[in-house]
């Protein structure tokens, strides 16, 4: 029995160590970034676009990247939403009787989720070349949308599936069409879940660099049309880090802090939103 007890205690400790490593990694990442980033963070970073010489250490900020990322994120999420919601609704039993079809679509969606963003970026670039498009906000939005579609669709699919058949049948029994049921009953019921899914996809979109690298370009200005190139936070961080000037590298850390703060904000608000809005749904 002693050997068995020893084995149990040993593995329990090992498991706790692993747990500690995982939690510790999260803490370490946020802490290190904040430690180097916060001192370099000032108001100018967040409110100004890069002035001449910004990459040499002179004035300016990364407003272009912050606004750019927001434009990209909002645009991509909107496009992805318009495509994902219909697909997620279609996957429900009202629309497809054949189980193999929904299984197949879901499998494809999972596969799409697995495709790395660099591949979407490369593909986006190829398509843009084909149509003679230049790097632009539009290109970035399309590439990011490709990335977000599987995430958004699968998340919404999971949420919509939880709506009980009884609720939907009740709606049909009153003579509603499938579309009316979808809009008035299903979506209302799953609104918190859908909003959460949207927020999470948005967060994913802002954080990605590889897909916008070839498609959105980079610029120091804030674009005024979707055909202009646009800066993004991840690329701003990357480029600033690549300069030989320590002041600029410090700004990279500050930018990273801003990005992390943004992600934490999105994560927190999606959780809070879920908790708050779930009050209004039927059980």
């Amino acid at each position: 029995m002693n050997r068995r007890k020893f084995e149990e205690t040993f593995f329990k400790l090992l498991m706790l160590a692993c747990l500690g490593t995982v939690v510790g990694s999260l803490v370490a990442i946020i802490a290190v970034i904040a430690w180097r980033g916060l001192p370099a963070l000032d108001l100018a970073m967040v409110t100004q676009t890069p002035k001449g010489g910004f990459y040499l250490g002179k004035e300016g900020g990364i407003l272009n990247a912050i606004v750019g990322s927001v434009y990209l994120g909002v645009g991509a999420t909107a496009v992805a939403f318009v495509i994902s919601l219909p697909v997620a609704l279609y996957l429900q039993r009202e629309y497809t009787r054949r189980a193999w079809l929904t299984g197949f679509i879901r499998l494809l969606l999972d596969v799409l989720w697995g495709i790395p963003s660099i591949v979407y970026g490369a593909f986006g670039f190829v398509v843009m070349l084909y149509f003679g498009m230049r790097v632009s906000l539009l290109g970035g939005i399309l590439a990011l949308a490709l990335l977000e579609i599987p995430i958004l669709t699968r998340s919404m699919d999971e949420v919509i599936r939880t709506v009980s058949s009884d609720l939907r049948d009740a709606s049909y029994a009153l003579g509603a069409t499938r579309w009316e049921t979808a809009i008035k009953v299903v979506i209302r019921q799953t609104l918190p879940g859908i909003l959460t899914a949207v927020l999470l996809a948005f967060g994913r979109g802002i954080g990605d660099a590889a897909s916008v690298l070839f498609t959105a370009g980079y610029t120091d200005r804030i674009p005024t049309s979707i055909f202009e190139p646009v800066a993004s936070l991840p690329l701003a961080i990357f480029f600033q880090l690549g300069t030989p000037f320590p002041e600029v590298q410090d700004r990279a850390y500050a930018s990273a802090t801003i990005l992390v703060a943004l992600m934490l904000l999105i994560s927190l608000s999606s959780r809070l939103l879920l908790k708050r809005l779930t009050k209004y749904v039927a059980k």
Partner: protein
Amino acid sequence: MFGRRFADLLATKFMVVMVALVVSIVLFVGIGLFLKSLPILGSHPLNELLFTTSWKPSKGEFGFLPFIMGTVWVTALAGAIAVPISLLTALYLAEYAPERVRATVKPMVDLLAGIPPVVYGVWGILALSAGGISIGFNVLAGGIVLAIMVIPVVTAIAEEVFRTVPKDVKEASLCVGATQWETAKHVVIRSSLAGVAAAIILGFSRAFGETMAVLMVVGNIARIPSSIFDAAYPLPALIANNYGEVMSVPLYDSALLFAALLLFVVILLFNVIARLVLLRVQRGVA
């Protein structure tokens, strides 16, 4: 009434179009990349592309082996680090952790998954490569950073799989006098092998395709690594770093898109296999 019927019909048609669009994305991506790879596939035999080591685009030499091996080394190291840690963590969360611990840790794991890759890269530089423990820009740094990115993926899936093991079977094991750990070993893990395998495959898939974080810490030297302290140059980094020169050198763009095609095919295979396995597991339980 006509208006309502029309709206329903329109909505349905729209849905079908969107589904068709999404379904065809995989096809389009594959075909698009393949078409753009044809030039280089046409002028260089496949085994030369895949198995030679000389990468001099301006001279027309495109040996991908260093990049393929770079990817293999970093992915393998990341897997070796991440898999045990993830599985043990998942086991703890599923079998041992009190509800409050689980409720606190699970969001943390999700947060870890949500941190943008470029931030991982910055952290890697600050904590691993240039500062902190200063291990340099090599496979080791890339592997550690990737491992932390893979952990949330494997942990989340493995934990779910472990939780599907029915309580009855676990209790049956306890009732003959097995300890909790013996039950975990012989019953929980054993029942979950397929799901765990799928989780691991998906973790590897994530590592394989990760671009930004690895690029920043792995060194980017086009040589086959001989140890984890050597620098490497994984495929995604190759594509990301060189897109700018694509226009000036003939066949360079085709070469890079061929690299993208390679990534696409491998990851496609990984994901299809893993998802099919998971589907089987879920159906088996239901």
